[in-house]
């Protein structure tokens, strides 16, 4: 596997950080080197939140992705505007199309528009699993970790009392994965 550089970005509360965390966890479970690097600010102020995940088979240099990203997940417009340019050649832009849209076409990248908020709301009665839906699309679109590893990651991240969240998460993940599979 080549080094995979992924950036998840959105509003605070949209679950961008935990989406990245599951990905990183899955990478670790597969034995790769991983890093998960969040933005942080004066806490409790809302605003944007993003994290950078790197999965690699070599020791990871910069944990911050400022260029050559393989995948950017933009959960809202400001995030899309801010991060689209860090995509490298053949990078994949995954857009929560309910809240964002790429304004100008860009060469050399692939764009997946996914109405994740709507999909989540329809299926789960709220937008809270939009992040996992998008994660499904990520895993389908780039060469990082296997679906099984993500499943494993769920069981690690949702421990104890949180185990009850696993089925919905798996479902959301699958929705996203399949949406990407059938994309266009």
């Amino acid at each position: 596997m080549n080094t995979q550089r992924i950036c998840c970005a959105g509003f605070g509360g949209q679950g961008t950080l935990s989406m990245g965390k599951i990905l990183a966890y899955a990478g670790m479970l597969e034995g790769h080197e991983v890093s998960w690097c969040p933005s942080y600010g004066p806490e409790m102020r809302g605003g944007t939140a993003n994290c950078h995940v790197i999965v690699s088979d070599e020791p990871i240099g910069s944990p911050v992705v400022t260029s050559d990203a393989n995948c950017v997940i933009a959960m809202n417009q400001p995030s899309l505007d801010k991060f689209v340019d860090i995509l490298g050649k053949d990078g994949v832009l995954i857009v929560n199309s309910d809240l964002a849209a790429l304004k100008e076409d860009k060469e050399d990248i692939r764009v997946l528009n996914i109405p994740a908020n709507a999909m989540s709301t329809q299926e789960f009665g709220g937008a809270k699993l939009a992040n996992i839906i998008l994660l499904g699309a990520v895993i389908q679109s780039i060469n990082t970790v296997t679906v099984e590893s993500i499943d494993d990651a769920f069981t690690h991240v949702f421990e104890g009392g949180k185990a009850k969240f696993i089925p919905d998460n798996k479902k959301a993940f699958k929705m996203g994965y399949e949406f990407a599979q059938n994309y266009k």
Partner: protein
Amino acid sequence: MAVIFQKTKALTDVKLHYCPGCAHGIVHRLVAEALEELDEVKNAIVAVPVGCSVFANKYFNFDAIQCAHGRAPATATGIKRVHPDKMVLTYQGDGDLASIGTAEIIHAAARGEKITTIFINNGIYGMTGGQMAPTTLPGMKATTAKNGRDPKINGNPIRVCEMLSALDGPVYIERVSVSTPAQVTQAKRAIKKALEIQRKGLGFTFVEVVSSCPTNWGLTPVKAMEFVREKMIPYYPLGVYKDITAEEGK
């Protein structure tokens, strides 16, 4: 038709960065209004703390300095000594004032420094994400007291007005709240009175505002105000703790 309530000019147009329903916004307004009504906006200099209100300097439409954590009373002392004819305030949270800044507030008070301190007691460290404050109530949860504050383990809360009242320097100490419109009215009255006393040069004045931090309390703003009324105020009783102008009147 007359406008009977609108945003005071003593606040700037910068949008407040506070969480929805945070009482900081209310108190900012009261301080600003009080200064405006006293026509002291032009003479006011406020020493803002490290805490959620660290950017208060951007919101208050008068001179301001961002102080080191806890040291606003010392910094305000420096300012007041240089400009004894200006209105000098500190605006401080409970971590700032009652924890790291304990020595500074006590000594500014004991010196009878002619400044006014507005003390926002929200029982938690807001800015850094909900750690225990000296004023966190017994049983109240914090990120450094996850099972709720246990005085046996985490020490006892400090009642600042009561403690400062043991000193000779302060001339006016009142504890107010802003959890109801009536309390807001009383809070403003107290702040205004403190500033008037400062203007007369009588001594150190102190207004504690029992306040809320919905975010770190994990409550909606409305529930948070209920918590203020039901839990905070019984522990931190409102009222005047010291008032030499009243004593003089006697």
